[in-house]
């Protein structure tokens, strides 16, 4: 199958659609983390895929992902400043969310959520994207590195930096 894909290329609609399905969500989320506006993230994500389709003859499948991110990054340059990234929490029950917890605990938990959200807004763009791609999209450092066309070491540095900034921000607010 890989062989067939390589030969047929991205101009085949089946392959393009397959590629879209496996990469669109992550690209959209990356753009969302990057500049905070869901509508714009959706829009630029679609625009990047339209460009990919239009240039399918010149982009081998192996280069398609980095093409997408390059187009998306260039588009972002012209966008307005970063807005607040709105994130939700999964409804799944975590060990700390049992109903027998004291009201004080629940209150503290809500406060912590607010703090971490605020701290995430204040991360640098590169730290935030790397951190959220890992935490929300479950991407491995090596996958993030390939996406952003940087080394794994650089991703690790961003993650480390993000954690340090988050803790400092959260504890300063206290």
């Amino acid at each position, binding site marked *: 199958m890989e062989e067939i894909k390589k030969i047929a290329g991205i*101009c085949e609609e089946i392959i393009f*659609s397959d590629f*879209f*399905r496996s990469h*669109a*969500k992550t690209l*959209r*989320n990356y753009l*969302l*983390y990057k500049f905070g506006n*869901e509508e714009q993230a*959706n829009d630029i*994500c*679609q*625009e990047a*895929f*339209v460009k990919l*389709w*239009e*240039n*399918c*003859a*010149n982009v081998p499948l192996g280069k398609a992902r980095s093409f997408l991110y390059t187009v998306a990054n260039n588009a972002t340059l012209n966008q307005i400043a970063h807005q607040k990234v*709105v*994130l*939700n*929490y*999964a409804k*799944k029950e*975590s060990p*700390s969310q049992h109903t027998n917890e004291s009201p004080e605990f629940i209150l503290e938990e809500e406060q*912590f*959520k607010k703090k*971490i959200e605020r701290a*995430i807004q204040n991360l640098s763009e590169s730290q935030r994207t790397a*951190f*959220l791609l*890992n*935490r*929300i*999209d479950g991407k*491995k*450092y090596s996958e993030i590195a390939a996406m952003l066309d940087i080394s794994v070491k650089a*991703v*690790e*540095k961003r*993650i*480390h*930096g993000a*954690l*340090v900034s*988050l*803790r400092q921000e*959260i*504890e300063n607010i206290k």
Partner: protein
Amino acid sequence: MENNFDLAKWLAGEMTGSELEAFEKSPEFETYQKIKTYSGSMEAPVFDTEKSYQNVIKRANKKPAQKQNYWFIKLVAATIVISLGTVFYSKNKTTTQYAEAGQKITFSLPDHSEIVLNSNSKIKYKKWKWKSNRNLQLEGEAFFKVAKGETFDVNTSLGKVTVVGTQFNVKSRNQNFEVACYEGKVKVAFGNKNILLEKGNSVTVQNGTITARMPLGTEKPSWLLNEIQFNNSTLDQVLSEVQSQYGIEIEHSQINSRQYFTGAVPTDNIDTAMTIIGKAYHLNYIKTSDKKIILKKE
């Protein structure tokens, strides 16, 4: 900056041993642990993949650039084909194996798969290009013993059989398409249907519909053992098979029977074969010459 611990490694669950122990004892650990837990349960807004894909297709109503460039690619391709065509002509020749009536042929494909071709049957394939074009055309009936790990397509006018390291029999005569799988698995395609046939099973297709799916009684096709096996066959089908096996002509225009025949007939003894058929259908046969038999009512 806090550089005492490799936090990226810790977040990925790769911190172990004494380093992890020391980190867990450090005063900042509690907050980091909370950050890890809470950020792990965050979610991005829902992404509607289908809707988004439809939007992309709508926005990309332009044809892909490659299509506009097709004429150029075609021109280049045509030039290459014309200049190299003569060179490849000899390599591109089709090899044909043909078993006449009353004859069976055994031969091997370039990948060492073995084929036994039944009487009055033909196989065409490209010897030189076998590696890139594992395709053969079959008219009639043949038994295939495919070399391990090899795969190819058997095309007939009634359907296609795709194989992977297996033993199977394909019969495509008149409107009758029969595939029997003796080992491994084969994929059978006819009309717009696809079925997967497993070891020890057979399928019969007539006029594009499946008329029988039956388990196999033998380990080899009966014709390889000098027998022809019939399952619910009409007299016409039985006689046409006998004619091609023995290379004879059987005159039966006066006989009109709708009775179906199930049973085996030898392929190496015409008298026994005709006696069996005669008994089943209450007919007498007269040999008028070596090559001609006439069937009459008892």
